[in-house]
């Protein structure tokens, strides 16, 4: 690890850490966060019992714990930790890909308007009293639909530029956000309205294995496909003319990446509501560790996103008797982080 010093301040050079060390650290973080997530909760279960219960799922052994402890660990905490981890990983890799493709540090999975689209499907589902798979399917469908609309607006003559895509994303996002407000207008103030509001703020409170089975394959597929595009995203992060001169079909690859991002975001929103800031903040932190090369930025973002969101969710459900909506915590932690990052970047650019 090396620091560059100027003006008396130490500034980290992106990517100056040893990569094996970073990967080792990231995996360790994921494991620690997952174990913390499994051990912490409102119901007291000793860490020893948690480990015994987990081991007993693989190697059956006589139970030295209460049946409710086993249910809490295996049916409440385990699916939640898995779902949170996968969602965090997905949102972070999607954010890293978006920032690369748009060549803009403020791009995030929300830029495409997919979150608002999926949120509308979810809110509409709650309004009509739909739950379970149908709710998830509704949210996911409107999420992907919003990407289609963005495509219809932004693509002209088979081409689109990134600025138009951003604008189309804002338009579609705003439109669906208005539709979400409309559902709130008609929601029963005693029952469905609080549910819609809480869900829009983001929460994994309803995590079950069923939801894991629904969301995890889609998020994992989206993340894997983005990772397979790591070289192309590196090229897409160059200027468009340069990318084309390197033989890349910019238009096709860009929309393919958008589709994979939409898959991840749609699936995540459909099971947990809007979890903001993760896709924006985590890639920046990952970039500090491994630099701008998407071959490493994508997997490191993925691991860091999983660990980060697992840790945040643990805080959300254990800090107080009532659960704190996840979006509140990700914003409370994310906003100052981005502010510090912004200051450092400005200082760095002024110094060079």
């Amino acid at each position: 690890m090396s620091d560059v010093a100027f003006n008396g301040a130490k500034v980290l050079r992106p990517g100056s850490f040893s990569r094996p060390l970073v990967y080792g650290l990231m995996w360790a973080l994921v494991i620690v966060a997952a174990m913390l997530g499994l051990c912490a909760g409102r119901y007291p279960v000793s860490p020893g019992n948690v480990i015994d219960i987990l081991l007993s799922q693989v190697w059956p052994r006589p139970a030295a714990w209460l049946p409710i402890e086993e249910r809490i660990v295996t049916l409440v905490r385990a699916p939640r930790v898995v779902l949170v981890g996968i969602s965090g990983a997905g949102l972070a890799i999607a954010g890293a890909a978006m920032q690369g493709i748009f060549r803009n540090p403020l791009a995030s999975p929300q830029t495409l308007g997919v979150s608002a689209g999926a949120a509308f499907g979810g809110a509409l589902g709650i309004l009509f009293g739909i739950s379970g798979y149908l709710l998830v399917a509704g949210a996911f469908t409107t999420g992907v639909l919003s990407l289609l609309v963005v495509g219809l607006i932004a693509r002209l003559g088979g081409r689109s530029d990134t600025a138009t895509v951003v604008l189309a994303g804002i338009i579609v996002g705003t439109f669906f956000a208005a539709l979400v407000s409309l559902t709130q207008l008609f929601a029963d103030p005693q029952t469905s309205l609080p549910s819609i509001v809480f869900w829009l703020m983001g929460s994994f409170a309803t995590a079950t294995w069923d939801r894991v089975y629904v969301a995890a394959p889609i998020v994992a597929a989206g993340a894997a496909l983005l990772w397979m595009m790591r070289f192309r995203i590196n090229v897409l992060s160059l200027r468009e003319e340069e990318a084309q001169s390197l033989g890349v079909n910019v238009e096709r690859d860009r929309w393919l990446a958008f589709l994979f991002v939409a898959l991840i975001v749609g699936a995540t929103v459909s099971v947990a509501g809007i979890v903001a800031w993760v896709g924006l903040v985590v890639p920046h932190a990952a970039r500090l560790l491994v630099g701008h090369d998407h071959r490493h930025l994508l997997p490191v973002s993925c691991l860091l996103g999983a660990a980060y969101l697992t840790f945040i969710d643990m805080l959300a459900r254990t800090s107080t008797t009532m659960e704190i909506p996840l979006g509140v915590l990700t914003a409370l932690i994310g906003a100052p982080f981005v502010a510090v990052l912004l200051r450092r970047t400005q200082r760095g650019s002024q110094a060079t």
Partner: protein
Amino acid sequence: MMWNRANKRIVLCLMAGLSVAASVPSLAQEIRFQDLTGRAMTLPQPASRIVSVIAPTASTVVSLDSAPRRLVGVNPISIATFSAGIVGRVFPEALSVPSAITQAGAGVFTPNVEAIARLSPDIVIQAGYAGQDIIQPLTNAGFNIALYMWGTEDQARQVNTMIATIIGRPDRAREVNQWRADTIARITASAAAVPAAGRAKVIQLLPTPNGFTVWGNNTMADFAISMAGAVNAAKAVNGMGNVNREQLAAWDPDVVFLFNSGNVSRDQILKDPILSVTSAGRSGRVYILPTASVNWGSVGEDDPLFWQFVAALTYPQVHRFDLVADMRKWFTFMYGRLVTEAEMGDLLLAARNSGAPNYSFIVAR
């Protein structure tokens, strides 16, 4: 000439009529009262056109007047409560009282001043605890406003007194308030027999898509549970809050009362993989709270029935009340007709609570 003489006679008659009409208000009983925030109000006569922007007071007006005739505007929540409970059964016309009097989406109690003005109310009842933003528009429009507060037993009785005074029937509030006092005394006296150690942990909750809404400290549920001699398992929450099932498992309630909203069912506890292994889940002591004048467990004029319901089902051997007889007596008082057996079974949700321990015992007793 004949024409002129006739006209003069008509004019004289009209003037005489007008002077009599003008003297009527001074003959009528002037109404003076204080609202729950201490504002002194005067009405020239008992209000015959009442708009209740907030939900709970609409059914209070009906029960104290034994009729919905004075209600000209109510909150949409009130219509839902009328429909699910007793008011809509006894007075089907109450279901068609205009309810488009709030600003949809701007908060449940934000008034739509123009819609209210069209109803020409003598008085508008509004929440006094949610800031000036929902009061000022009504004041600016020149309505007579009575502000409502809730949270203590004293305030609940003041609400009854205020509304009974507004409709010119103060004696009705005295009777209802005496009933509240008597019921509290009765439950408190019998709760003295509950052993201090090992008190039952009781919780009132509502499953939502994101978890469970619980009624914590400083709620009517907390009041009822404590009065019965039990402990509110959600005491750590101040007011109402949303918790997850792990928290509920940690509290491990002995008795669960489900707030009657939407399609709430006992199976949401009894078939839940986590909650089914709590004490209440194992014993099956999970009860859906009825909706009568209001949803029991919120705040309203049949609170004494809710208190007895909670006490009798928490400690059936200690609180031996004839709940059904009390319901019959007070519903007759409030709504002016005897509730039939079938209606009583419906109101007590006998079918949805069937199989719950002690339930048929309570209902039948």
